[in-house]
């Protein structure tokens, strides 16, 4: 049993992380932080680099919550990775951050949040900053 959160080093991601920490603490379960990238492009600012990873680690350590960070590139979309981890870790809650998208953006780029919402094996908490 755990709480899985999709993390990106942005405002949305930090907000999601905050909520996830609170949920994990109140439920008394482990927090699993997922930060991933498809690895399609050479550069992906949404994938945490060493500095950001270290900052994340120290933030998590400060919270005192039992946590785990999944930081891989397995050629899968963020949504697929989050769902896969949620299934593996038998998550009781998935937390994701939402960003604003224009109607055209929603059509052409799909939405991580949408796919997670529809396919999650458990309740999903979607938060905005």
């Amino acid at each position: 049993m755990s709480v899985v959160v999709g993390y990106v080093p942005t405002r949305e991601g930090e907000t999601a992380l905050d909520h996830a920490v609170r949920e994990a603490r109140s439920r008394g379960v482990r927090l699993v932080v997922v930060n991933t990238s498809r690895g399609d492009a050479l550069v992906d600012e949404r994938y945490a680099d060493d500095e950001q990873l270290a900052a994340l680690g120290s933030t998590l350590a400060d919270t005192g919550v039992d946590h785990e960070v999944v930081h891989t590139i397995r050629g899968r979309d963020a949504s697929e990775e989050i769902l896969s981890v949620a299934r593996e870790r038998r998550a009781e809650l998935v937390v994701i951050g939402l960003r604003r998208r224009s109607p055209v953006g929603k059509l052409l780029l799909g939405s991580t949040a949408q796919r997670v919402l529809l396919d999650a094996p458990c309740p999903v908490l979607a938060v905005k900053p």
Partner: protein
Amino acid sequence: MDVWSSLLDGFATAATPANLLYALVGVLLGTAVGVLPGLGPAMTVALLLPVTFALEPASAFIMFAGIYYGGMYGGSTTSILLNTPGESSSVVTAIEGHKMAKAGRAAQALATAAIGSFIAGTIGTVLLVVFAPVVVKFAVSLGNPSYFAIMVLSLLAVTAVLGTSRLRGFCALGLGLTVGLVGADPVTGQQRLTFGLPLLVDGIDIVVVAVAIFAVGEALWVAAHLRRTAAHVIPVGQPWMGREDWKRSWWPWLRGTAYGFPFGALPAGGAEIPTFLSYVTEKRLSKRPEEFGHGAIEGVAGPEAANNASAAGTLVPMLSLGLPTNATAAVMLAAFTQYGIQPGPLLFDREPQLVWALIASLFIGNLLLLLINLPLAPAWAKLLQIPRPYLYAGIVFFATLGAYSVNLQAFDLGILLVLGLLGFLMRRYGLPILPLILGVILGPRLEKQLRTSLQLSDGHVSGLFTEPVAIVVYVIVAVVLLWPLARRLVRRTPAAGVGAVEEREKVEAR
């Protein structure tokens, strides 16, 4: 025919609005391609060969030259700004440049790279102007036997010296020569390797070969080993340098140029050795050697200059002798044949306008690159966010388009696929690309020279040795071929700095 007045004429041609536009397109494309991993100037020129159908030769070559020089600039931007060093062709620049960027000195690194490239490119092009006519004058005095001997030497040098395995170099050469053989024999009209297919009678078009080997082969190879990375670009403002940085960069720039130009001009010289030499020299001469490995500006200035000077140097044998010393030059030569222009010593005589316009545009292109890249370097890094599927699908798309547009035959696409698979195989099993492409381009010319020489001597093989230059060259050929045997006999003494040698052998034939 005064060299400088010819050059001025060249400027007149190169500075027309249309040609300036092509130069601009060329340098922009070249920089973009240099920034992106997996693409290179050779591939880009190959993919653009179809434009030779519509453009004047001068305009097309102005664009190609822009791509060539631009590729050098782009590569250094990536190696400095990307926080996974070693991922671009400017490996040596990345050593110090990236450390500088991490220390917050990305602007200075980019500036020294750009300015150094400009200075080296300009000096290199001036040297080209000075030396090329000299070489031409010498070459024109050569007869067929000597010219044949020189061609053999340059082919051999590339095959036997570059890369880690000369055996495989020869394998690649053999395959290249075979591809070049396909078609009707120019002298007797006999069909060779056409297998009764009428579509092969004209031989296999060099455009198809170039595109297949450089573009399709590369795309297939990358597809087979798709990399999954997610790096960050180090944010940077406008590149600039302080006075201290300028002072520290001057001599490395000049020394780098001195290293780069000769190596570029020699067959099998390449750009890797001079950049490495430049780095080692700067480290040894530096007043602050402990900075090396932590962001020493000399370690960026020198190698970048060497890189660009080598590019200029490559053009000396290409324009004056028609002998390419790297992949991009080889593809540009293919473009010459597309136009029906015979590359070689007589090029300066027969097409002075084209050659001098090309050389003049090198100066212009260099300047454009400096003006564009100094402010725009950070913006180029944005290109790195293009997903690989689009990049490589695009390469396959344009490769197909290019190959098809040669003859509007689907058959050519079949050949494209077959040769593309060959390119894939070669990359898989470590057969170097350059000997193959040289075999395709130089093979027919070699044969022609051979037959003419022997025809003049009535079939006596001694006809190949009638000129002193030819004899000297053959001696060099013998030395090149027998060198490994000699080395094995003397091999007791381990080379000082074996590590250095192994570093140098990481060759990338782009």
